[in-house]
């Protein structure tokens, strides 16, 4: 590994380096507010007040009431609570639920569970850039449909789903709850929960420079959910267990910073993405997956996804790592298995392209120089691997 140059981290979709201010808050609150926020003594009340402050800020940041936010252990729990919670709470009205073919595993698994439990699940197909169609969503709706769950930004290729239009359509079906997985969109895209008619919205702190182990779920007032975790009645009875006060306070801080600078950072990342794209388009071996154009309304600004068809993506990841650069294959949650990406298959890509996915995701510390270094390294790696193509390609 090259000793002089600092490590470059391009895997922000998997997790992000926590902001120093967030770390400070986490440590200080952990030291000072160790009491249980449900206790009635002064220390408990203080911790409880802090929790209340965090919730209030959530409400303000998203233009909702503070009571509409539930703190969880992360994106996975938020998704699971939203989907299973809403489907089971409405099961007397109907057992048909709708999602898309390219959801995150934590969403997919929830629907598989529901299917095993007698629910009928419709998986909406996506087009070649990964988008669902509103027409197909409309056709999928039945009188016994109770839930639609869509991701805002796809975690592999960065496709933006038409949430606003879906919300508009679902407004005409008041019996259907609308869940949006916002884990990859918070802090990158504008979010208007009320305006879009979203009933449930998941987020995770460590994707936006917060600590791991905390997530949040918007539950529109009036929504009924069946809790996953029973117990002490915390979080309005929706999630038992002593709240992670330091994690929550630090997360809300990270969230505030991310939302306050959202527009400015999105523009920065969009420019970096375009810069990298222009370099990589010179390499005929690489194909851009999803929507290439950084300015497209269908593409999130912080993700560039590409394939070296036929090449095992691990080889490229490791070759870049040798040069001090970290990128990832597929999504972190499924990158350890060798099967082609479900998302890319759903987008209609052939197996060599679907199995050769590489994801570059940007963060606050990147600038033009770091992006150029990545481009140069990728060019070098491709040059190096090109003659060896036949020997190490996957089947």
């Amino acid at each position, binding site marked *: 590994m090259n000793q002089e140059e600092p490590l470059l981290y391009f895997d922000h979709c998997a997790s992000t380096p926590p902001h120093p201010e967030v770390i400070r*808050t986490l440590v*200080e*609150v952990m030291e000072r507010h160790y009491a249980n926020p449900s206790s009635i003594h002064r220390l408990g*009340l203080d911790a409880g007040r802090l929790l209340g402050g*965090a919730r209030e*800020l959530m409400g303000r940041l998203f233009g909702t009431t503070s009571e509409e936010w539930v703190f969880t252990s992360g994106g996975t729990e938020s998704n699971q609570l939203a989907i299973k919670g809403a489907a089971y709470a409405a099961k007397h009205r109907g057992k048909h639920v709708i999602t898309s073919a390219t959801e995150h595993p934590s969403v997919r698994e929830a629907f598989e569970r529901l299917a095993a439990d007698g629910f009928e699940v419709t998986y909406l197909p996506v087009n070649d850039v990964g988008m669902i169609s509103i027409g197909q969503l409309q056709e999928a709706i039945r009188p016994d449909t109770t839930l639609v769950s869509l991701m805002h930004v796809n975690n592999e290729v960065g496709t933006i789903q038409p949430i606003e239009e879906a919300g508009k359509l679902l407004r005409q079906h008041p019996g259907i709850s609308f869940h949006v997985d916002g884990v990859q969109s918070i802090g990158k895209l504008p979010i208007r929960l009320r305006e879009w008619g979203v009933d449930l919205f998941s987020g995770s702190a460590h994707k936006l420079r917060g600590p791991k182990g905390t997530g949040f779920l918007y539950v529109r007032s009036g929504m009924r959910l069946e809790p996953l975790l029973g117990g002490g009645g915390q979080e309005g009875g929706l999630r038992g267990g002593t709240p992670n006060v330091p994690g929550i*306070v630090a997360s*809300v*801080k990270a969230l*505030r910073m991310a939302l306050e600078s959202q527009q400015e950072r999105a523009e920065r990342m969009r420019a970096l993405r375009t810069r990298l794209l222009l370099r990589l388009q010179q390499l005929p071996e690489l194909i851009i997956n999803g929507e290439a154009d950084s300015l497209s309304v269908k593409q999130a600004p912080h993700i560039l996804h590409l394939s070296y068809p036929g090449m095992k993506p691990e080889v490229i990841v490791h070759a870049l790592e040798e040069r001090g650069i970290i990128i990832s294959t597929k999504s972190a949650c499924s990158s350890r298995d060798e099967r082609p990406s479900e998302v890319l298959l759903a987008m209609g890509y052939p197996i060599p392209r679907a199995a050769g996915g590489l994801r570059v995701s940007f963060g606050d510390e990147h600038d033009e120089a770091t992006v150029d270094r990545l481009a140069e390294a990728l060019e070098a790696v491709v040059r190096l691997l090109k003659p060896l193509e036949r020997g190490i390609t996957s089947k």
Partner: protein
Amino acid sequence: MKYDHITVRYGELTLKGRNRGRFEQQMFRQIKNSLRHLEGLEFEKTYARAYIKLNGVDYEQAAEGLRRVFGLHSFSPVIRAVNELEAIKEAALSLWESLEVKPATFKVKVKRGWKGFPHVTHELQHLIGSHVLRAAPELKVDVHRPEMELNVDIQPEGAYIFCRSEPGAGGFPYGSNGKAMLLLSGGIDSPVAGWSAMRKGLELELVHYHSFPFTSEQATDKVIELARQLSLYAGKPLKLHLVPFTDIQTRFTGTGQDHLIITLMRRAMLEIAGMLAERNGAGGIVSGDSLGQVASQTLDSMNVIGRVLDIPLLRPLIMMDKQEIIDQAVKIGTYTTSILPFEDCCTLFVPKSPSTNPNLRVVERTENGIAELKELLLKAADGVETVNLDAGKVFRKKTVLQEAEERDWF
């Protein structure tokens, strides 16, 4: 078309002949204060009303503040046009076009406050009405029971066009009728009593008695929250005095007069409130008593309890039913806080059968039997912690440092 102005009409104060100028001054200041959180507004004062130029601020946001100003008769979102027939016709039409729900019938009502305008009222009504009718053929005129009244108010500086009016909170401007102390418990009634007093123009300072450790910090936080909600109506800073009542209360439990303990406590509270009134230049006490509601609110009890005071004890809710009080609490926004389940010192040590007709002589004898009572009362009044509230913000010494640190964490 967005509304560009609000017309604000003053209320009862127009009755007050000679004081009128001062009341109007106060009214105008109150309106400005209630909206100071909104940037860009311009205020203009005329006879018996005020105009607010919105400069792009949303009408609803401004209306929310105005609903809390006492002394207002009504207010309307208006469009201002220059005093020319064509401009007025256009403004009237654009107002019609901006309506989301279109009424089926209407009439035009012109008020010619400026007699210099070239057309007479009747003629104007016809001209404006037919202009709107041409654009909306389905619309009909109904002069007797129109669904909508399209008002055109012609003043020297311009014409104001509007079609709806919202009643204001009524009453007198806050602080225009002197100052009093409000006994604020954590219950439903006292915040409503406070609101009623404020509405009648009384400036308030709030007094709350706590008996830590028998009452919890949460009970105090709850009262601070109620005070905070009342402060939204004051339009200027409001004080809450927290009185340590534990020593007095526990002393009374040792007198062997269990059925009189409520009477004794209420008298002690009033006496302390009286001292605080004198120290803070207040001329009366306001309480949330409602006749017959509990043992201390029977006529006999009120007689014995009220005697400790030599300034007026005002009871705005005295003849109201519980349900009416609850409805009012919901309306002013204090109800959900009031029903939080924290015990306050009035519900502590409550005997099984409190006296509904206490004997004044026995009460006085019991009090005289406590040699240190005067001292305890003084000590309580001296030991007050004062919390300041301003437009929904809480300033408490104890928590200022803590909060500065907490703000930093977020």
